[in-house]
């Protein structure tokens, strides 16, 4: 029987890692992800979890330690936040390119300057193109679930990719929410033991990450790209099994809320989806035909699913929560990919983006009402006047 608990996202992730029987953990403190390691350290100290717990001397070391451990055949976990995530940047490509399925929990945090410990997706988003699987959790339950789902997908020999398992700092990492802890037998049924096709083993020597000639480089890039093409089928299998074993109702890539007859929608990922649902409920009661589409996997980007989900609307507002300074849309990163996904459709919705939830700001109901107003106006006028709206910093809609 699943056990209901009230846990923060950090504590939920620690419980998930414990039930996944993680074998090597490497820590280095930074808010807000730190409680993940605090919880795991307690579990190891109390004898509840049989794992090597290693204190890294920095994030670069953390990732290097788990790379070695994972390459030697251990299921591993590390994590970080904000500038910690970017400090380890050098290691992300070797890990993905080496096809070593390390898992890293990111409780996101705004990058400096100035020192800001609030949530923002920019830290992890900056690492999105290195070949890792990646997605955000909306609440502690999803943080728990995503840990298991990502181990299963990333370690699958058809995929073999590391995973950034992200959650919004503070909003998800610190604010406790309801979490159903499954039985160990359910987790064991879902998640097979970790194996690597060619692990580091003194009895069977292999080379990982040697120097190569230029003519050997492209093929490795192609293989890494192919792994992202192969991952969706594995994700679908994993989600189907997860839903069956744990009694959940996840869609693999995009989830829709009140979209049946919607003229417009928010496109969103992570914590603020919760507030957006409440905003939609209230807008609906006033007759506004609005829904939302939530993204569960940013990498691999579900091009077709995004196109299909969004094609039925007249206008889509992308809630960004990250920055792409000087980018094509002048705002965040998501609208670039949303527009690219829609490009080949014969009938495209109008699209714009909303810069919200930056620097740790929450996105209150009234901000979603403001966004809905802009989308209504776009539909009325039949065009997108601006591709980016800095919510709360505009003179008029």
């Amino acid at each position, binding site marked *: 029987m699943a056990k209901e608990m009230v846990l*923060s996202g*950090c504590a939920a992730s620690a419980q998930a890692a414990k039930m996944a029987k993680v074998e090597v953990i490497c820590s280095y403190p930074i*808010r807000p992800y730190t409680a993940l390691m605090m919880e795991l350290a307690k579990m190891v100290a109390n004898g509840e979890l049989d794992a090597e717990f290693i204190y890294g001397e920095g994030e670069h070391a953390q990732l290097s330690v788990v790379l070695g451990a994972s390459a030697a055949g251990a299921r591993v976990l590390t994590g970080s936040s904000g500038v910690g995530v970017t400090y380890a940047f050098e290691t992300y490509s070797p890990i993905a390119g080496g096809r070593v399925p390390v898992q890293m929990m990111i409780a996101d945090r705004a990058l400096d300057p100035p020192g800001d410990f609030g949530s923002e997706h920019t830290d992890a988003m900056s690492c999105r193109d290195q070949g890792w699987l990646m997605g955000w959790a909306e609440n502690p339950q999803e943080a728990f679930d995503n840990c298991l789902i990502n181990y299963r997908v990333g370690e699958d020999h058809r995929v073999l990719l590391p995973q950034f398992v992200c959650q919004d700092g503070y909003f998800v990492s610190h604010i406790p929410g309801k979490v159903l802890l499954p039985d160990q037998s359910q987790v064991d049924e879902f998640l097979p033991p970790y194996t690597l096709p060619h692990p580091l083993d003194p009895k069977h020597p292999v080379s990982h990450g040697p120097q190569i000639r230029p003519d050997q480089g492209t093929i490795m890039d192609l293989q890494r790209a192919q792994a992202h093409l192969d991952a969706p089928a594995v994700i679908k299998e994993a989600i189907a099994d997860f839903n069956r074993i744990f009694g959940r109702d996840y869609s693999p890539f995009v989830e829709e809320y009140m979209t049946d007859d919607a003229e417009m929608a928010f496109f969103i990922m992570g914590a603020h989806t919760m*507030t957006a649902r409440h905003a939609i409920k209230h807008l609906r009661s006033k007759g506004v035909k609005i829904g939302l589409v939530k993204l569960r996997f940013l990498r691999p980007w579900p091009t077709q699913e995004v196109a299909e989900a969004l094609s039925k609307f007249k206008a889509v507002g992308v809630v960004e929560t990250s920055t792409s300074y000087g980018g094509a849309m002048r705002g965040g990163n998501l609208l670039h990919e949303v527009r690219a996904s829609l490009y080949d459709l014969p009938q495209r919705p109008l699209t714009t983006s909303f810069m919200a939830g930056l620097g740790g700001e929450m996105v209150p*109901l009234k901000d979603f009402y403001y966004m809905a107003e802009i989308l209504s106006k776009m539909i009325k006028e039949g065009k997108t006047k601006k591709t980016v709206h800095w919510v709360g910093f505009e003179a008029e809609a």
Partner: protein
Amino acid sequence: MASKVKQITVWARGVVQDKEGRDIANGLANAAKKEGKFTQAFDNYVDLPDRVNVPLRKYARISDEEIEERYEYENEKPEVVIVADATLVKGINVLRGMEKGGVLVVNTDRKPEDILKFIPNRDLLKAIVCVDAKGICGEATVDFSGSEGGVDAVGLGAGMAAPILGALVRGTNLVKLENLAAVVKNKEALYKGHEQAVVKTL
């Protein structure tokens, strides 16, 4: 934040009362949950990571309906303010944001009149409750197990939080004493706090 959500703010001292402060917020939320309410209890993120004796805030929210803006960082309009260390009232406007008709609960061996002298905006209060929690169960428990987003490994309300919660019931109708008794560890201290609390209606 919709006004139907009742906000309760706890002021405590960093590190030495971190767990106590959190226990007060959690105890209140857990007891209210037993009464079928929607609740939230969480640390003020901005006050953390705490340092020894720095003022810090813990929050509880109680509502008849689902709490929609769970991510509001702070309780902007607390109806009830609980001060776990009386000396905090000297330097801090603990009632900030309170609308007229609120309640203040203070852990102190002094009389309500003595505490009120340090509250310049005391006209906001409809009642003040004083309780000598330290006298009832001794020094604050020092425990680091639940710091910064973690889970408390030791029970809730083993220390000073229990008598303070007991006293709270004397000045408010947020939760019933028996539901607090069901969630706190030191029930004797809870009841003693309830009995020994000094209430002054204003």
